[in-house]
């Protein structure tokens, strides 16, 4: 029975090995292997000329709301288009947005091989991963393999992607502007004779809110959503870093202690006391079903062309009027809201860049990725406009792939939406400090504390829920104690260095 005993020792050994690795639920035994191995890109040195390109497989991770049943079908169709052009096939790896950050952070830290990867400032964070060295610097690749894409996207957008002077991702060109203002339900504006052209500030809206309060029971005059309610410093002549727009010395201001901030908080508190603002403003996370269509005015941050039609559903299906308070501006944040990077583990960065150029220039390919197949996943209403079929078996968001201006419009958007948006993008007011990016490594702990304090006080103060006289001094005091001055000093130092380099 020697054999049996050996088997026993082996099994026990295996078991021990498995325990050894299983602290906190991590383990592995080498015996069993049931799956296919990770997709391997065939390693071959790519050459510049198209005729001699060896065949490669590229892997592309991107975010979706839901993985679609027809994914494989789309991948096959995509490969039919790109194979003859760049002699590559692509393995599409859509991951739901909820898992995307965890999954990609792990895969990227583990050095897994993939080529293209979608990144943003709100998921699989772009800045963090650039600093970690997860992406390849792209300047040369873009110049060589993606000249059209480079041309199409405005310079300031490229500037926004730069880290220490180098580009690490290709922006998916879309609406890059932000414009702050009010959404007013048209029905009420008409009924009470509100003239949108006369509203230039918060104060101008007050009589209208009073009328709603008196005459429309059950309707909240001014709907605020806690985490989304910010002090919009651009409206008061400050840029994102608290520098006065016309300040040649680029002095960073302590926004929370500015008179404008205090005035705004006081106004909100007065409105709250008068009952204009919803009582749960500080805790509501978004305008969801419980508030849908039950308010007269709300705040909008991105008043892009045609947005009124897009958010109609949020307002109980009623028409709205957008009243902008600021000029069209562009912030770094809105420029890096969706990008595609090339992983440092990519074996074929050249080919990956070629694919990116193709997606950003080939309308057929872009529309296939974004809207699926005609007749099955979408219906064409006209040459340029499609009606998507949510139950057709394929859904994706056009802005995760590339330049949305190359793609179809969705039912309800005006025919000239893309032209107007493009013009707005190009005419947007570029803030003087645009392109500067604060590196908070030196003050990381302080910054985290400040963020926690802000998250605690801002929703209370800026929705007017609490008394400004009592809470604002408390808030300022806490900010100071948490190291506000140190962070400002560091910010000022970096900004001065940046100004010296870029503003001559």
């Amino acid at each position, binding site marked *: 029975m020697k054999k049996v005993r050996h088997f026993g020792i082996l099994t026990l050994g295996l078991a021990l090995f498995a*325990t050894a690795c299983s602290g906190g639920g*991590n*383990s*592995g035994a080498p015996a069993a292997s049931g799956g296919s191995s990770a997709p391997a890109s065939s390693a071959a040195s790519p050459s510049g000329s198209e005729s001699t390109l060896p065949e490669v497989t590229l892997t592309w991770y991107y975010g979706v*709301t839901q993985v679609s049943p027809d994914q494989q079908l789309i991948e096959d169709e995509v490969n039919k288009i790109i194979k003859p052009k760049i002699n590559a096939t692509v393995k599409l*790896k859509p991951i739901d947005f909820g898992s995307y950050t965890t999954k990609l952070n792990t895969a990227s830290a583990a050095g897994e091989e993939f080529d293209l990867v979608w990144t943003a400032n709100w998921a699989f964070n772009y800045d963090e991963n650039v600093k970690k060295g997860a992406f390849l610097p792209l300047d040369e690749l873009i110049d060589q393999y993606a000249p059209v894409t480079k041309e199409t996207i405005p310079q300031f957008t490229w500037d926004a992607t730069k880290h220490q002077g180098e580009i690490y991702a290709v922006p998916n060109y879309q609406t890059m502007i932000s414009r702050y203002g009010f959404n007013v339900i048209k029905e009420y504006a008409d009924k009470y004779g509100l003239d949108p052209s006369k509203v230039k500030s918060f104060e101008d809206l007050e009589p209208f809110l009073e009328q709603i309060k008196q005459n429309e029971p059950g309707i909240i005059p001014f709907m605020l959503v806690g985490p989304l309610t910010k002090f919009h410093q651009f409206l008061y002549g400050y840029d994102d870093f608290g520098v006065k727009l016309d300040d040649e010395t680029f002095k960073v201001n302590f926004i929370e202690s500015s008179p404008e901030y205090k005035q705004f908080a006081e106004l909100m508190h007065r409105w709250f006391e008068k009952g204009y603002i919803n009582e749960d403003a500080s805790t509501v996370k978004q305008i969801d079903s419980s508030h849908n269509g039950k308010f007269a005015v709300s705040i909008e941050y991105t008043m892009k062309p045609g947005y009124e039609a897009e958010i109609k559903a949020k307002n109980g299906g009623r028409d709205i009027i957008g009243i902008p308070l600021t000029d069209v501006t562009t912030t770094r944040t809105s420029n890096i809201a969706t990008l595609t990077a090339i992983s440092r583990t990519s074996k074929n960065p050249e080919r990956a860049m070629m694919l990116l150029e193709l997606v950003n220039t080939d309308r057929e390919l872009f529309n296939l990725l974004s809207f699926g197949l005609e007749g099955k996943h979408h219906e064409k209403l006209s040459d340029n406009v499609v009606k998507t079929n949510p139950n057709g078996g394929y859904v994706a968001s056009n802005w995760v792939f590339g330049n949305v201006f190359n793609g179809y419009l969705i039912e309800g958007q005006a025919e000239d939406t893309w032209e107007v948006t493009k013009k707005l993008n190009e005419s947007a007011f570029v803030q003087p400090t645009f392109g500067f990016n604060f590196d908070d490594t030196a003050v990381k702990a302080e910054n985290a504390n400040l963020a926690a304090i802000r998250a605690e006080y801002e929703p209370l103060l800026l929705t007017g829920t609490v008394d400004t006289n009592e809470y604002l001094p408390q808030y300022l005091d806490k900010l100071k104690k948490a190291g506000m001055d140190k962070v400002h000093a560091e910010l000022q130092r970096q900004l001065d260095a940046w100004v010296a380099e870029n503003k001559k």
Partner: protein
Amino acid sequence: MNASGLHISRTGNAMIHLFFILLSIVIIAPFLLIVSVSLTDEKALVEFGYSFVPAKFSTIAYEFILQSPGALLRAYGNTIFITAIGSVLSLLLTSMVAYAISRRDYGLRVPLTVYVFFTMLFSGGLVPFYILMTQYLHLKDSLWAIILPSLLSPFYVLIMKGFMGKIPHELIESAKVDGASEWRIFFRMILPLSTPALATLGLFIAFNYWNEWFNALLFIDNDKLVPLQLLLVRIMNTLDFLRNNSAYIQGLGLDMSQLPNESMRMALVILVAGPMMFIFPFFQKYFVQGMTVGSLKG
């Protein structure tokens, strides 16, 4: 009642009943709400919000999900496979390790126990774990990636060791004198004697496998291999994530209608959790039986 020494007054009895009735209501009410929401027309939901009685009755959410039940059925299949294979293998390995380190006449007993215990305190961390699984074991996109990591839990091994340590050593010795091999002793004597512990741990392990989704999230890309809980987690997580980041997403124009609506999500919860809830009470009977049988013998 009066005859027994355990007399409980009428009011006391009523109080106890009341307490447990209230407790049950607190537990059952949210569940009933989910059932109700899943049966409410989406438009009525937007208009009137949640209520225990559907404002407008509709089974469209179920109809829609059951129209193409492929994904759901496959997920059920995957989860059942993982739970069945995982539980059996895990129980076998756990009891084997525990038995070895519970034997008083085994020389390496102490160092091995420390070795097992050590893994409870320290782990390699997520990234090394991921590298091991994907680059050395090549387990990406395989159901084994979900089964293997929790095959042996040191905590369960130590519980099992505690139980097996109480089995009299003389039993083993007498079996040996009668000429039984180690394998025979383990499978014919030790395992039957450990039934109560096996039943308890088996239930824990099966639950762990049934509810497992994090490893699946990390290692499963292929949509055909997604287990049940991940199916649910994905939808709920994505929705939460998008809500919390709405400040950034607003500008992108994400079409929220791509996500399942409220009543459909609740219907999915019912379809995922429902069957288990009906099955569990039946298993519980045997579970309790197993425990008492053990204690009587002991």
